[in-house]
């Protein structure tokens, strides 16, 4: 790049600045751009794709992952990771089914309290005991799944939800859109405001950017790290409860591998795994991208499950490669 700078230094640096600005935009909105392209191509290719009911379906499928992904974004922004969300999601569902005997309050409060507490334990171990987030939450993945099995006779029973109000929370719809979608939107909006407009949210970004600098600035680093795991536990528990309401039962085997989907949605959304940079809007785009890819694969009805896996894996690889290449131009 520097070799081309011989006579016309001025214009070249200008062009370079413009290029960098474009690259920066592409990195932040890369997932959204790919999403739009996919939506356009999908609408052209499949007549059944661009229909109101199909889009509503995609939104419902996305809403649970989006709530989990919102919590995960907070954790990843601090440079951490939460592998326990899949198990916590299942626990949230089972507890919501148990709690639903006390109506809608029980169905939400019971899972939120327990899952928040699980997040708090993990947060304590990461923030105050200085243990690696990957290991703490990996143990969480194992241990919480054990709790789910213990609560359901080794996974052999599936607690059902009979309270119509609770079921309505999952299956009820306004303008054809299910309640969990609205709740997911509220979670994202609240989360975005927290991140961008509050002291706590700014501290999350600062801790992820540089822990030692944050310590020197006098930020409560440990408290910030602790709270993001509580947030992630609460989000995973809420998503699990809503999913249970949607399927009117707390299935003990749901959520296996959910952590990987949530992490890839966050990363595809432009949040760096090292922390310090990213936002929830990107996560929304990442989640929708994953759901749309899945939906498009389903549109080609004839594909069997192994071809589907190959296609979605290859697709994920292409998306992250494109995004990495785009963001690299900027990093240089």
């Amino acid at each position, binding site marked *: 790049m520097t070799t081309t700078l011989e006579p016309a230094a001025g214009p070249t640096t200008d062009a370079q600045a413009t290029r960098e600005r474009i690259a920066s935009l592409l990195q932040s909105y890369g997932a959204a751009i790919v999403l739009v392209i996919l939506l356009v191509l999908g609408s052209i290719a499949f007549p059944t794709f661009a229909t109101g009911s199909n889009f509503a379906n995609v939104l419902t499928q996305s809403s649970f992952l989006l709530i989990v992904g919102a919590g995960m974004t907070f954790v990843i922004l601090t440079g951490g990771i939460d592998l326990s969300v899949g198990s916590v999601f299942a626990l949230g569902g089972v507890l919501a089914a148990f709690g639903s005997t006390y109506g809608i309050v029980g169905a939400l409060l019971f899972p939120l309290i327990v899952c928040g507490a699980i997040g708090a334990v993990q947060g304590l171990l990461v923030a105050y005991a200085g*243990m690696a987030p990957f*290991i703490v939450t*990996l*143990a969480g993945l194992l*241990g919480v799944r054990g709790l789910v099995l213990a609560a359901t006779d080794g996974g052999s029973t599936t607690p059902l939800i009979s309270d119509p109000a609770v079921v309505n929370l999952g299956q009820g719809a306004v303008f054809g859109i299910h309640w969990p979608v609205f709740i997911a939107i509220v979670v994202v909006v609240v989360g975005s405001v927290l991140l961008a407009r509050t002291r706590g949210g700014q501290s999350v970004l600062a801790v992820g950017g540089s822990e030692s600098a944050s310590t020197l600035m006098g930020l409560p680093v440990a408290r910030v790290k602790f709270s993001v795991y509580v947030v992630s536990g609460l989000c995973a528990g809420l998503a699990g409860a809503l999913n249970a309401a949607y399927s009117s039962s707390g299935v003990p085997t749901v959520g296996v591998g959910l952590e*990987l989907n949530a992490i890839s949605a966050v990363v595809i959304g432009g949040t760096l795994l090292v922390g310090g940079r990213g936002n929830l809007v990107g996560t929304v785009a990442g989640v929708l991208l994953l759901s749309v890819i899945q939906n498009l694969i389903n549109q080609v009805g004839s594909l069997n499950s*192994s*071809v589907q896996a190959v296609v979605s894996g290859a697709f994920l*690889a292409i998306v992250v*490669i494109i995004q990495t290449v785009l963001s690299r131009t900027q990093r240089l």
Partner: protein
Amino acid sequence: MTQATVSVSVPTRGSVLGLFQKYGVYIAIVLLLAYNLFFTPNFFAVDNFRTQFVQVVPVLIVALGMALVIGTEGIDLSVGAVMALAAAVIPLYVGYGLVPTLLIAILVGAVIGAVNGSMVAFIGVQPIVATLSVMVAGRGLALLVANEQLKSVTDPGVLSLGRDSVLGVPISVIIAAVLVGGVAILVNRTTFGKQLIAIGGSRRAAELSGLPVKRILLLVYVLCAALAAVAGVIGTARLGASVPSTLGNLIELSAITAVVVGGTPLSGGQVKVLGTLAGALLLQFISATLIKHNVPDAYSQIAQAIIILLAVYIQRGKARVK
């Protein structure tokens, strides 16, 4: 908050706590074995130990490759899918005999590793996402190759890997021991080992000092996948069948746990090969102990989680130094 920084300079060596930190995983194994000596009937029998060692082989071999990848500050989630792919190609080539089958399986693994490594080294994709996409696609590919079918493997050469013994030591255990020794030499005695640790310590510094960072990274992912393929062949030999739908499911998590419990930090820059062996053995002994005491699966998982946390908590002083 400055406590964390202060504790780094406190000399821990020599004190009892320091011993625990340095040899946490080995002490945990000794304690666990002592418990079994007194409270588990028939644990201390040659047959039982043979079974335990045979069972730990696949996880151990995968963990060896994983330790190399983690040493470069990476991670490889695709190892289970590579095992499945290796299993899937065995029935296709088993007619040519043991050695060609093994070589083809390793070659397939190496190709997958090259895909991982290229994405990480040359394009700069974050390892967790790069290998996640390969994990999803690889398992699908394995099922496609196998036509989504389970096939029994009857070739005596392949089966011998899983069943036969030399002087009472199972062949799979011998292979694993050779691989542990090989990887230990690779890490501690070769330029390549020093270079991969340097990359994990600081990729930027390694680049600036002129190391062929990209080539080393590529090679590390190729090695990790090739080792996973060997584990896939041994796993298939033990089952006597190629089962690409389930072989190696979630093994990435066990392998990562073994590596980290063995004292290799996820932040890279160190590789503990013997620690990884100890980590894998500890996990194996924990689950064996729980099974022998008829602990239900649910509580066994909770107990494993707590023991992993304890083992890592004891060692955490070391990790902070980084």
